[in-house]
């Protein structure tokens, strides 16, 4: 009985040791680059990563999530080379805690808010945005798209505060909501969505910044301003300069 127990304990310790060892060695393999990305960039970042690996020997590992959650992980010591976010305050905050070292921070692209509807829905016009009988969903206050929505539109009769623009898109794609405030790029990416009425790209809008957190990360940040990268960004509906 006792030897049995000791055996289990040995196996347990052995596995722990292996895990600890792999944890320690992984960040040292300099060939890899780990990019923390806001979820609203999740489509374009895959194309950008492909373009990056084409021209170099590094492989890109993407960690996609809400900006606040990613920032919290970084504060807790998650290893990352680049952080791409629409929330400039988070970058200021991380820099003040010394987490960005002297890394490069560059504005990468802009994105605009649009009112969208399911493609199957009836024609809407701007005043329907305030019609309480329609189901309207937006991002929650506190996430970048939600804060921008509040700055842009006051007192909307919102039926649900969603955790991300992606979640708003899902509501519209399932035809569970009549109108939703999403990013212009979401409408480009999703065939089930259309702009509820013709809308100009106007600010208040969302500006994405990339912060390098290591020398390799800095290279990736520079790459994002290159012609190839900017072409990919604009193909996804992002713009370089706010209009």
């Amino acid at each position, binding site marked *: *009985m006792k030897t049995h127990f000791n055996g289990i304990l040995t196996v347990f310790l052995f596995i722990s040791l292996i895990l600890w060892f792999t944890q320690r060695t992984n960040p040292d393999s300099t060939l890899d680059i780990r990019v923390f990305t806001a979820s609203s960039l999740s489509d374009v970042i895959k194309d950008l990563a492909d373009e990056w690996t084409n021209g170099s020997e590094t492989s890109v590992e993407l960690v996609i999530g809400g900006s*606040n959650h990613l920032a*919290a992980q970084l504060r807790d010591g998650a290893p990352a080379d680049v952080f791409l976010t629409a929330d400039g305050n988070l970058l200021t905050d991380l820099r003040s805690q010394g987490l960005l070292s002297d890394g490069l921070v560059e504005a990468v692209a802009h994105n605009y808010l649009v009112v969208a509807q399911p493609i199957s829905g009836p024609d809407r016009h701007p005043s329907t945005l305030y019609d309480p009988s329609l189901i309207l*969903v937006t991002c929650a206050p506190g996430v970048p798209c939600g804060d921008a929505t509040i700055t842009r539109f006051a007192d909307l009769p919102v039926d*649900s*505060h969603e*955790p991300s623009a992606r979640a708003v898109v899902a509501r519209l794609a*399932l035809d*569970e909501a009549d109108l939703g405030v999403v990013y212009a790029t979401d409408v480009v990416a999703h065939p089930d969505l259309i702009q509820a009425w013709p809308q100009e790209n106007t600010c208040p809008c969302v500006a994405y910044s990339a912060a390098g957190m290591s020398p390799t990360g800095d290279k990736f940040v520079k790459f994002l301003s290159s012609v190839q990268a900017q072409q990919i960004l604009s193909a996804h509906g992002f713009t370089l300069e706010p209009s």
Partner: protein
Amino acid sequence: MTTPGGAPRAVLFIAALAITFLALPVLALLQRAPWSSLLNLLTRQEVIDALGVSVVVSLVAAGIVLVLGTPLAWVLVRVNMPLRRLIRALVLLPMVLPPVVGGTALLFALGRRGLVGQWLERWFDVTLPFTTAGAVVAATFVALPFYVVTVEGALRTNSDHLEQLAATLGASPISVFRRVTLPQLMPAMAAGMALAWARALGEFGATITFAGNLPGRTRTLPLATFEALESDPEAAIALSLVLLAVSLAVLVPTRDRWIPTR
């Protein structure tokens, strides 16, 4: 600690490990709690709104679970029907299904364009998503199995000879159920209710997917906690403490009373 000499050390050691494992996160939460600003954080309007929605949703869900679950558990044990194994598995499914998937499935079923939901809208002008009733539906869906499993277990251990005795004395099936089966089942029903209620109170994934998130309507405490985690972690911890306190206040007395302890 009646048998300190007799308890195998390995068992005691592993049990202690398990207790530590469960207690550690709770202690860590308490250690990070913003005690000085707690009162300030908890008397905010949004917290009071969320608490109100949570209390209403979890209590109504527990009531529906009681009404639906008791006959279901009884049928599963006492009625010999075809596909019983399959039905039993179906009852357990919400326990296994990731709640977000459960919420999406509820949308496909009861949403505006759902299998049944489209008729609810057309005939009765009822839409469940984005309403408090929708939050109750989501909570009921995930909580029901906890109640059914508890009551089913009790029914299986109680033999049915008292019921048969009552029947031979001339009692009708419904009065046997009401006057013999139910009174015997009370402790298990209370324990099952406590579990189901606790599950409904903590429900997050199915609620946010099916019912959405609006203060005062569908935003329960777990949803408010999740949202606060994005912008105000201290408020999130304070909200979790409320959930912790409410559930301990209910579960500690009910567990001692209804689940036999010596």
